[in-house]
């Protein structure tokens, strides 16, 4: 095979890898993604026909001429889109690079264009890893480096061979390319830890541009029928790294009370939607009773289009792991934690948990809006009559807030209210929020968490207990290899009711769903989640590098300098310095001393002084040769010399013994 033929395929492979990397990020517009196969097919047929058809040839020429203008147009368009705040720059750049890829497929297949395509593919990969922290990119990256090394080597041979004659690839080309790739990987592993890191830490700072449909929203809308019949994509939202002792369900329940991860509290209900109200940040991130921490648990939150950080009720302290700025995180008075950076980014944070005995510090006290019933409903006597009748029935015997809360829980349990998933189809639901809520509460007694929590909050408010809806996640599956993955389908709503003694008490009356049986696909998905989690934790935001890179760098510099000095000083007038640095390497005078030689000399000197003996002179002669001659330690000459020294020494010793006996 000729280098030209191989590089023809290699550049296509690189193109393909870059396209796969970009499409896999899910940030590429679907129109762009869908046009990829069509563009590929068209480019393939046009380039095939270009040999025979003048029309195809002129089309290829036209596309090549258009390429420059298209690039300019794309740059200008991208700048305009970014300035109009339509999308973040990285997302725009990624989409633009996809289009550039497609244009290059139409270009003539020559070495110059192949270099261009290699560069464009590389930029595509850089953009992909900048906007997505997923593990699949590690595989793509690995393949890309292997193919790139092969391609660069092949391009080189192509360039060299074409200059002279059209030579074929050497027989051991592939073994050479494999060796090159292997060496690049080894070198990269050496270089990776010594590269300087920014002071504010490492981590993934790109992130999705658009709000991901995660099920979690800051506004809970009960109106409309938007969820019905629409299955939500169940992508991972949170990854929780647990130590071994916390992976059992009972232990996990102790660590994360109620399996609930709190997002934000929504306090105002207008009859259709729950809204958040403004809360001031509370200064300290530290609980007053911050002692008795039972575990520090690491969370990774995917880019979810909200600044909210999800925490369990047992949280005592929150610390961002990726960014060292203390002002990066704030806590609001109603207990919500928010990050101050871009909301479209992956966040890694460490929670100090107090276990089931702990309570999230909620510094706010109830205000009037927390006891409000929707005004439109309150003005309607029929509606109010129906709700008050039910409230009277539930809370008839309860006097304190705590008793009322217990009564409410008992009511929902005794009346066998049935939970449902958001995607389930249940008859009788319509577009009106009030209708849906009453249909759930009085008629069908089946619905999803938002209906449970809204009904409970409104009933408690009617009974004079301040209550609010809380939006967050509830765990439904067990950890895999110590990593708990919280998915979009785990989004949940529950309520917090006010008790003068206990404070805000979380109440989750929605029946618990157990994890479904895992199908083969879900097993694969779980494995992928696990790899994603480890990839992020140990590579993308590996903390140890931040602290250790100066030491790695110093060690690397030391090794390089030693090697350089060793090479420079070998046989030079700076031999004394070399003998200091490498005392046991060379025997000769100009190359330092050697321990085995020194030991023999001490032994020799320890012998009783003899008068002239031929063996003694011979010993000194051999020693001088080894010590001051240019003999390489460990070489055959060296070994022979040592053997000779030992032999002479043995004879000398026996002579001394004989002499002493005499």
């Amino acid at each position: 095979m000729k280098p030209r033929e191989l590089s023809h395929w290699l550049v296509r492979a690189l193109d393909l890898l870059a396209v796969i990397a970009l499409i896999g990020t899910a940030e590429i517009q679907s129109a762009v993604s869908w046009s990829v196969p069509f563009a590929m097919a068209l480019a393939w047929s046009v380039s095939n026909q270009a040999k025979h058809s003048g029309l195809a040839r002129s089309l290829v020429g036209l596309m090549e001429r258009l390429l420059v203008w298209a690039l300019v147009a794309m740059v200008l368009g991208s700048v305009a889109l970014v300035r109009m705040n339509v999308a973040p720059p990285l997302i725009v750049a990624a989409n633009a690079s996809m289009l550039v890829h497609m244009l290059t497929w139409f270009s003539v297949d020559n070495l110059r264009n192949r270099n261009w395509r290699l560069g464009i593919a590389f930029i595509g990969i850089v953009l992909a890893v900048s906007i997505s922290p997923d593990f699949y990119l590690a595989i793509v990256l690995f393949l890309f480096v292997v193919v790139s090394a092969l391609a660069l080597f092949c391009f080189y041979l192509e360039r060299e061979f074409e200059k002279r004659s059209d030579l074929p690839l050497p027989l051991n080309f592939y073994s050479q390319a494999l060796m090159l790739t292997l060496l690049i990987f080894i070198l990269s592993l050496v270089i990776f830890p010594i590269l300087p890191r920014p002071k504010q830490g490492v981590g993934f700072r790109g992130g999705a541009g658009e709000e991901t449909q995660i099920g979690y929203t800051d506004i809970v809308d009960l109106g409309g029928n938007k969820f019905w019949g629409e299955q939500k994509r169940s992508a991972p939202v949170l990854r929780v790294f647990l130590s071994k002792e916390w992976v059992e369900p009972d232990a996990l329940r102790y660590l994360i009370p109620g399996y609930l991860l709190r997002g934000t509290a929504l306090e105002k209900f207008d009859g259709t939607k729950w809204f958040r109200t403004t809360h001031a940040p509370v200064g300290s991130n530290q609980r007053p009773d911050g002692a008795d921490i039972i575990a520090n648990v690491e969370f990774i939150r995917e880019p979810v289009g909200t600044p909210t950080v999800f925490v369990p009720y047992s949280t005592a302290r929150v610390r961002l792991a990726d960014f060292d700025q203390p002002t990066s995180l704030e806590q609001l008075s109603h207990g919500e934690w928010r990050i101050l950076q871009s909301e479209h980014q992956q966040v890694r944070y460490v929670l100090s948990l107090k276990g089931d005995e702990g309570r999230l510090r909620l510094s706010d006290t109830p205000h009037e809006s927390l006891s409000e019933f929707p005004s439109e409903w309150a003005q309607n006597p029929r509606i109010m009559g129906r709700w008050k009748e039910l409230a009277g029935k539930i809370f008839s015997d309860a006097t304190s807030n705590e008793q009322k809360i217990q009564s409410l829980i008992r009511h929902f349990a005794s009346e066998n209210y049935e939970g449902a998933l958001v995607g389930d189809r249940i008859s009788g639901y319509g577009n009106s929020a009030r209708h849906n809520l009453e249909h759930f509460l009085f008629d069908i007694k089946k619905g999803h968490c938002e209906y449970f929590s809204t009904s409970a909050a409104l009933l408690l408010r009617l009974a004079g207990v301040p209550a609010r809806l809380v939006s967050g996640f509830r765990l439904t599956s067990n950890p895999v290899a110590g990593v708990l993955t919280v998915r979009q389908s785990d989004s949940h709503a529950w309520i917090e009711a006010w008790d003068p003694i206990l404070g805000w008490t979380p109440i989750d009356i929605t029946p618990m769903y157990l994890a479904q049986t895992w199908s083969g696909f879900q097993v694969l998905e779980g494995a992928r989640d696990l790899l994603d989690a480890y990839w992020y934790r140990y590579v993308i935001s590996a903390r140890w590098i931040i602290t250790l890179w100066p030491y790695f760098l110093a060690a690397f510099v030391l090794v390089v300098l030693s090697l350089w000095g060793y090479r420079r000083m070998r046989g030079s007038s700076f031999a004394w310095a070399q003998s200091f640095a490498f005392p046991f390497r060379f025997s000769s005078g100009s190359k330092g001393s050697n321990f085995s030689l020194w030991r023999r000399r001490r032994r020799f000197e320890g012998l009783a002084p003899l008068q002239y003996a031929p063996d003694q002179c011979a010993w000194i002669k051999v020693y001088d040769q080894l010590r001051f001659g240019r003999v390489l330690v460990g070489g055959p000459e060296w070994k022979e010399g040592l053997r000779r020294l030992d032999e002479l020494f043995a004879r000398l010793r026996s002579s001394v013994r004989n002499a002493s006996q005499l």
Partner: protein
Amino acid sequence: MSDLKEYGHRRLHVSVAGKWYLALTIGLGVVATSSGNNVLYLLESFLLGGLILSGVLSELAVASIQIQWTRSPCIASERAHDRIIVRNRGRLPVFCMEVGEWAGRKLIAHGFVPYLPPKSEIVVSSKWIAEKRGIHKWDGIGCSTSYPFGFATKIRWVALKGERLVWPRRLEKSGQTDAQGVKVYRTASGDFLEGEIREMQPDDDYRHVVWTLSARRGAPVVRVRKANSRAAEVLLDLRVDRAGDFEERIEKAASPFYASEVEGTQATLILFDGIYRRKIFGISTALDLLATVQPAPKGRHET
């Protein structure tokens, strides 16, 4: 014969692809540092790894090369059929290695080795073509490679100064030798009779050496075995108006010598500069002189 054995000097010429690669590496380094994304650092490591590997392997390649160069007579506009033995002493194979002469701060390639396995050698014939007659000088001999990725060309050269004579261009039609200032005379017999003893000339066959006489005289002498029945005598007038004319005259004058070399006959060169005549015997001697001879002023006349 000259050898490339020493460590020598190094030169590095970065190629266009190498410049782009460097720019990409620096750009990505800036992006990685500002973003803190370790995957970008990983990519940067790969790029730097490729760069370092490129430097190390090219150094190993050029350092492992040993060259033994045997030169042969060189004619302008023709390939110099020098015999270059390229030896790879290293443990790695060598790809796309150029060997040549270092002159004017650049390597003039003489031979190209596409692939040389470790611990092996290859004989390369020089493909260098001298442009014009005269003295060709070089500052050293060296080798170069851009292995493994072509980012830069690494040159290793050793200062071994030398020079060689480039004989005048050989005319395609050797018969057309008549030109202004050049006269070719064909003699019935040569300057030497059969059996005559004379000092050995550089183009003489060593089988004609009379060893006994040589030993006695202290210098090699040969016996001319064959009478040169069609010996040529070329008279070259060195007085010219223009330099271009002179070069043409030189080429015409050299033509009978090339023909004689092929036919195995004798040829004599007579140089005339308007005042003196100088007779040169032997083909090699004549061609050597023709390689360096310079025109004489036009106004000179025989006295």
